[in-house]
């Protein structure tokens, strides 16, 4: 106990003292100047750009698209691809817990207090940022069925088949929901001990017999459980793991937990930026993907 108290108040060694500068003036002036610069910049911004004020709130006319504030658009974007409970609550909660847990997992002191201290850290950061952005954009395009649109356009454009449409037997590959609606689940059903598996999974009898409580699995709809929960969550867990594995084995850049943290944190930042930007600039009416100049808000 005593020794702990002593370490807390121990004077710093003389050698370190010589490396130190006075807070006044060296730091106080920097702070002062940066505060002035920010004050001026914000005053200028506020003089030229006005905060938005639309019509008075009216619960009876819904703007389309309705958007959350920009810093929640990443979650609103997730909402388009999975079950709301995952997108709105579970994923952000887990993300924040993992974020807070980083220092308890990466505990070595090596390289602290220095920008990009570990050997391959810049490479890892640039790589993680690029690949995570690209993958996110690709996933969003896929779930927006853009490949369907583009394939149709290209095949029609070549003139081979001027009214080509995406074949129905490939409907499951349109987007995530296509897994749910594009597959004829009844055809895939099979019987097992009195149950028709798949068909019956839409109303699986998991209640406790003789009780009236509403068992939550009673209406488990397997196809939508698959497309709105299993696949999105597996993607969110699986892609980062694959990325870590690839970067470690194939690129050989991972030497420590710090490097893994760098990779995953940077990926997180990239996904955050991409989804926020897509939500802000590329989502038009009905949350359809649209170029920014094509986005108009209508009131319904």
């Amino acid at each position, binding site marked *: 106990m005593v020794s702990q108290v002593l370490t807390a108040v121990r004077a710093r060694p003389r050698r370190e003292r010589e490396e130190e500068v*006075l807070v006044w003036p060296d730091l106080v002036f920097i702070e002062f100047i940066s505060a002035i610069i920010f004050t001026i910049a914000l005053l200028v911004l506020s003089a030229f750009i006005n905060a938005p*004020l639309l019509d008075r709130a009216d619960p009876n006319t819904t703007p389309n698209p309705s*958007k959350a504030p920009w810093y929640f658009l990443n979650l609103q974007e997730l909402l388009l691809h999975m079950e709301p409970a995952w997108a709105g609550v579970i994923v952000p909660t887990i993300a924040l817990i993992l974020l807070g847990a980083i220092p308890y997992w990466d505990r070595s002191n090596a390289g602290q207090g220095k920008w990009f*201290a570990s050997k391959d850290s810049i490479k890892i950061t640039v790589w993680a940022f690029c690949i995570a952005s690209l993958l996110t954009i690709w996933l969003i395009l896929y779930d927006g069925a853009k490949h369907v649109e583009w394939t149709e356009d290209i095949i029609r454009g070549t003139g081979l088949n001027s009214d080509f449409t995406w074949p129905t037997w490939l409907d499951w590959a349109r987007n995530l929901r296509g897994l749910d609606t594009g597959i004829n689940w009844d055809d895939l059903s099979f019987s097992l001990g009195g149950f028709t598996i798949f068909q019956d999974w839409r109303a699986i009898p998991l209640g406790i017999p003789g009780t009236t409580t509403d068992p939550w699995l009673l209406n488990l709809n397997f196809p939508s459980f698959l497309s709105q929960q299993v696949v999105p969550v597996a993607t969110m867990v699986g892609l980062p793991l694959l990325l870590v594995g690839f970067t470690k084995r194939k690129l050989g850049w991972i030497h420590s937990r710090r490097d893994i943290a760098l990779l995953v944190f940077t990926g997180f930042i990239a996904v955050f930026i991409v989804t926020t930007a897509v939500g802000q600039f590329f989502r038009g009416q009905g949350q359809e993907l649209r170029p920014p100049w094509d986005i108009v808000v209508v009131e319904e």
Partner: protein
Amino acid sequence: MANAERPPGKNFNDQLYDLLFKNYLWQSIFRTGYPNTPRNQMLVVATNVFLHLHPTRIHRTHVKITHTYCLGGLSFFMFLGLTVTGVLLMFYYVPSVERAYADIQALETNVRFGLLLRNLHRWMAHAMIILVLLHMMRVFYTGAYKPPREFNWVVGVILFVLTLLLSFTGYLLPWDQLAFWAITVGTTMIGSAPVLGDESKFLLLGGFEVGSNALIRFYTLHVIGLPLIISIFMAVHFWRVRRDGGLARPL
């Protein structure tokens, strides 16, 4: 460190110095003259109520702008600016469904500098979120979360969440279509939580949808509840930066 004690003698500078800083009024406020010796400079940092958040000396590498880019300090500065502009906005704004929108309109048109005030508050709020995010990135990429600073990183994550909540609760107050529907979208997301979703949504809104109860709750959280909580966490955050031995630096 290069500053030596001032040599004696009365040239013009010294006379000016005496005139400005050695008069009755100045000394009644600041108790001392301008701190022009290293000893006095350390004393002023240690004894001034605003400056004492700082240590008296810091390591050379940490005053380089490129080490922190002042991001944490600027986040705090935004918070201070938001407090000042926010208090002024409270003079003109009544959080009732009948008055809120009209008050904002009146603020923009009838109050001198009212529009500027509102703009400043709005853009500072956005700037604060961006600065906090950038600050988090600077802490991460400099490896400054490593022991013994683990817990201050956690405090930081809480500060980030509180910053978002402050901004979100403020978003509803103008009571325009943007505000109303953004909060409707946001609270619907909260309502989808697998446990206690509907309950937390009801608690936040004071009802099943955004209405006058929601407005008064958001207002109260925005102007007093969350600012108090975030101030406490900021105090802990700054205290821990000092207690953990100042900013992180290579071993």
